[in-house]
């Protein structure tokens, strides 16, 4: 096998981190930031793509401030963005529980949870604005869980030792998104936001090196249109559906981010993909998505597989009921391996342990890819009613999907792709390497390093949208003459033509395989080879095979229907094509990162006890990939990470 030598560039854009002690950076930034007169703000047009927590909150806030906002989403309403599916909660350093929380502690936990691969200054800012987020949401009428005294309640979550998570039952994401959606609708009603639902961004328009517009497809009429603005805010979420099966919504895709990457925005740390340990296992080939069961279940559920392969085999074949397996024949492997954290070990560790058990042929579920999450002991200890009070809706949901009552038989779970820490590279202003292109929320490479802690995604999305971008956007906009670029610029026509040509090309293949089939094939390959445990061999194999699948797409895809009007096959095909262009850089990044950290686990790099072995001397950097053509090796730019405020330590949860 030949080694791949990645072209490395010495150039790295300035990350624009303010000077001074970490506690003062953001204050100093805001004090010194450029401002735009309220009367002048309406002259600036801001294009916001995506209406999840990041995009929606940014659109609402910027519209309130007086900017002229145009907002786009592929769903039929901004309220449907996939932030809505977040269950658990949102972190904030309010210290309402008086258990010693502080901005610093939230900052530290997040950096450590991310296995020291995040930018300190960004994470500190995130922790600083976390309290403002909660205040804002409460004022909007988000019904957070409360105590009888009328004050806000908190939960504890994985990776922290205190209670700082605010929640709305199991639907925190929904309630936060509705708050944000209502703020948007308020501005839509006032005419400050021009909303374009059922509109998908297909390309970015770069004029004189600056992002000045987007090309979109109207998903109802099929029309390809352009919009010009003074800046573009990309908040299009993650790329988890590169694995085909994931907890993401069916429409989640990398198309917009990939288009920006191709236009010059660096893609940072794409190999950091989070695999969530508690999802309902795959049932069959027809399956379209995986359903997450909240991490909170691990508070009272015990995870196990049979000790012997024979028993596992019997369960797989349905010859034996899980509840009939004797206590002695069960391997509570998380409790065995991580006695102090037990079933509450962080997500990456729990996921890998499940995979190991199944690789050892002790997995359950008909496919062999599943482990048990058992509530037998908790029910015996606390009673059925108490359990239902805690997890009733989750138990119902599980029974609805699987027709198995988790009171009687243990749940079956297996890890699934859930969140992507990697994304487009941004500086402290949330601006990418293309001036004028700002990236928010999960779409940027963000504040989570190599692993995201539970309840931190909602925090980051809202932080970027409500608070950060509102202060950092003028830094760019003040350098621009408002309205200087219109869709009359030749770059718009060029981009539209390129998009139309690509669409026509895929429509005209007229092959035999549907976009879904090809997506499934890609997903299976990436999941098997670049999923939870990666080796040089597996990565090389994926890198060799991906171009083949891409060629298969461009020579044998069958896109039904026409370019006019609504065409869901064309939408799928466009998204699959983007995943095919993007999948290699995910593998390249995983191959380049010769260490294990957080969610990125290279089997070659582990401790004697199987724990991740980080290499801070060589890999304490953000790997930023510059696109050089499909099928070509991307160029690696490195942003070195320095840790002045936290001590680099081995992340141990034993």
């Amino acid at each position: 096998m030949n080694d791949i030598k990645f072209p490395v560039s010495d150039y790295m854009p300035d990350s624009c981190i303010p000077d001074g002690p970490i506690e003062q950076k953001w204050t100093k930034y805001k004090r010194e930031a450029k401002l735009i007169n309220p009367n002048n703000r309406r002259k600036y047009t801001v294009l916001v793509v995506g209406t999840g927590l990041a995009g929606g909150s940014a659109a609402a806030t910027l519209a309130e401030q007086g900017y002229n906002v145009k907002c786009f989403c592929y769903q039929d309403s901004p309220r449907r963005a996939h932030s809505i599916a977040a269950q658990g909660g949102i972190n904030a350093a309010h210290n309402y529980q008086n258990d010693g929380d502080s901005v610093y502690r939230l900052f530290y936990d997040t950096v450590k949870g991310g296995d020291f691969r995040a930018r300190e200054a960004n994470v500190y800012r995130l922790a600083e604005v976390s309290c403002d987020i909660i205040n804002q949401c409460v004022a909007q009428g988000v019904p957070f869980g409360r105590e009888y005294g009328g004050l806000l309640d908190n939960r504890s979550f994985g990776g922290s030792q205190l209670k700082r998570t605010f929640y709305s039952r199991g639907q925190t994401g929904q309630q936060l998104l509705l708050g944000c959606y209502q703020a948007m609708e308020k501005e839509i009603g006032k005419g400050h936001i021009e909303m374009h639902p059922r509109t998908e961004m297909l390309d970015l328009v770069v004029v004189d090196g600056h992002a000045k517009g987007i090309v979109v497809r109207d998903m109802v009429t099929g029309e390809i249109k352009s919009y010009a603005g003074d800046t573009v805010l990309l908040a299009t979420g993650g790329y988890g559906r590169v694995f085909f099966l994931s907890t993401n919504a069916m429409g989640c895709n990398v198309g917009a981010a990939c288009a920006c990457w191709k236009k010059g925005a660096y893609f940072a740390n794409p190999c950091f993909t989070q695999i969530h340990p508690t999802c309902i296992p795959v049932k069959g080939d027809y399956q379209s998505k995986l359903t997450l069961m909240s991490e909170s279940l691990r508070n009272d559920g015990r995870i196990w597989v049979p000790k012997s392969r024979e028993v596992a085999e019997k369960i797989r074949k349905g010859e034996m009921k899980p509840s009939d397996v004797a206590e002695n024949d069960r391997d509570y492997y998380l409790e065995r391996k991580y006695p102090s954290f037990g079933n509450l070990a962080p997500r990456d560790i729990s996921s890998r342990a499940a995979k190991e058990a199944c690789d050892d042929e002790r997995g359950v579920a008909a496919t062999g890819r599943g482990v048990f999450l058992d509530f037998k002991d908790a029910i015996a200890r606390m009673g059925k009613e108490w359990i239902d009070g805690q997890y009733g809706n989750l138990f119902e949901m599980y029974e609805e999907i699987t027709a198995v009552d988790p009171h009687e038989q243990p749940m079956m779970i297996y890890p699934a792709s859930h969140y992507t820490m990697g994304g487009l590279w941004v500086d402290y202003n949330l601006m990418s390497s293309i001036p004028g292109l700002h990236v928010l929320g999960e779409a940027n490479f963000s504040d989570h390093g190599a692993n995201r802690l539970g309840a931190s995604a909602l925090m980051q999305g809202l932080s970027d949208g409500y608070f950060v971008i509102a202060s950092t956007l003028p830094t760019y906009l003040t350098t621009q003459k408002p309205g200087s670029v219109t869709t009359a610029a030749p770059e718009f026509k060029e981009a539209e033509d390129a998009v139309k040509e690509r669409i026509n090309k895929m429509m005209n293949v007229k092959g035999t395989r549907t976009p879904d089939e090809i997506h499934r094939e890609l997903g299976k390959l990436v999941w098997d080879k670049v999923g939870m445990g990666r080796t040089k061999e597996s990565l090389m194999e994926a890198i060799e095979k991906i171009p083949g699948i891409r060629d298969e797409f461009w020579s044998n895809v069958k896109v039904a229907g026409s370019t006019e009007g609504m065409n869901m096959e064309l939408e799928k095909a466009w998204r699959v094509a983007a995943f095919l262009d993007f999948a290699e850089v995910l593998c390249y990044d995983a191959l380049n990162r010769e260490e294990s950290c957080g969610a990125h686990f290279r089997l070659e790099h582990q401790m004697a006890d199987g724990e991740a072995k980080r290499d801070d001397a060589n890999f304490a950097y953000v790997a930023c990939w510059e696109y050089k053509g499909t099928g070509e090796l991307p160029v690696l730019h490195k942003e070195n990470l320095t840790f002045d405020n936290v001590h680099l330590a081995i992340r141990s949860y034993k």
Partner: protein
Amino acid sequence: MANLNLTLKVWRQENAQAQGRIETYKATNIPEEASFLEMLDIVNEGLVKEGIEPIHFDHDCREGICGMCSLTINGVPHGGKHVTTCQLHMRQFKDGDTVWIEPFRARAFPLLRDLVVDRTALDNIIASGGFVDVRTGSAPNANNMPVRKKTADAAFDAAACIGCGACVASCKNSSAMLFTSAKAAHLNLLPQGHPEKNKRVLAMVRQMDAMGFGNCTNQYECEAACPKGISVDNIAKLNRDYMIACASEAVGVFA
């Protein structure tokens, strides 16, 4: 587990202007544990291979929370099993069944294609007053205003609405009262939403009427079809709040 063979009666319509019709398709070898939308995926894959355009339907999260999936199944939105269509599983059907699949009914939900309808009217109701008018950054400390737990829980129950529009589609009159009242109740119950209560109620009801929805006749089909169990108590509350708001507007009582 057994696989099912079904006959599907599906509403097909190329676009808003075209004439719609029912087409019959066979759904063969459908696994019982597949969801209803996965069943449609399988059927569509077959249709595409045969050179027929796939059946268009709305869907996204497929875990029952985004509210994008619609479908009237056997005459009832979401199939009437207290879950969204995406959470409806094929084990609810028997081998040999005939299943009717049609769009959500309502003049205010114009059809776009096949089973896809435009529910923007619901967004317009929210835009008219379904919010608390606070600017980002101006909020006081979250614990400055205690809220009784009971009130917070009641507000949450109303706020659990996913905006799918099943209430409208199930209503014999295509009334949007359950949707509108749930949002109004969520915000009116909380102290944060109180300053705008009357204004909100008047604006939302008037917008609802302007969108061409019908009038509630207290049949409670909406509650029965709602996948999130939103209660018609909200409708009673909206009626009450509307009287109060009108009195306030006319003569200034209850202001």
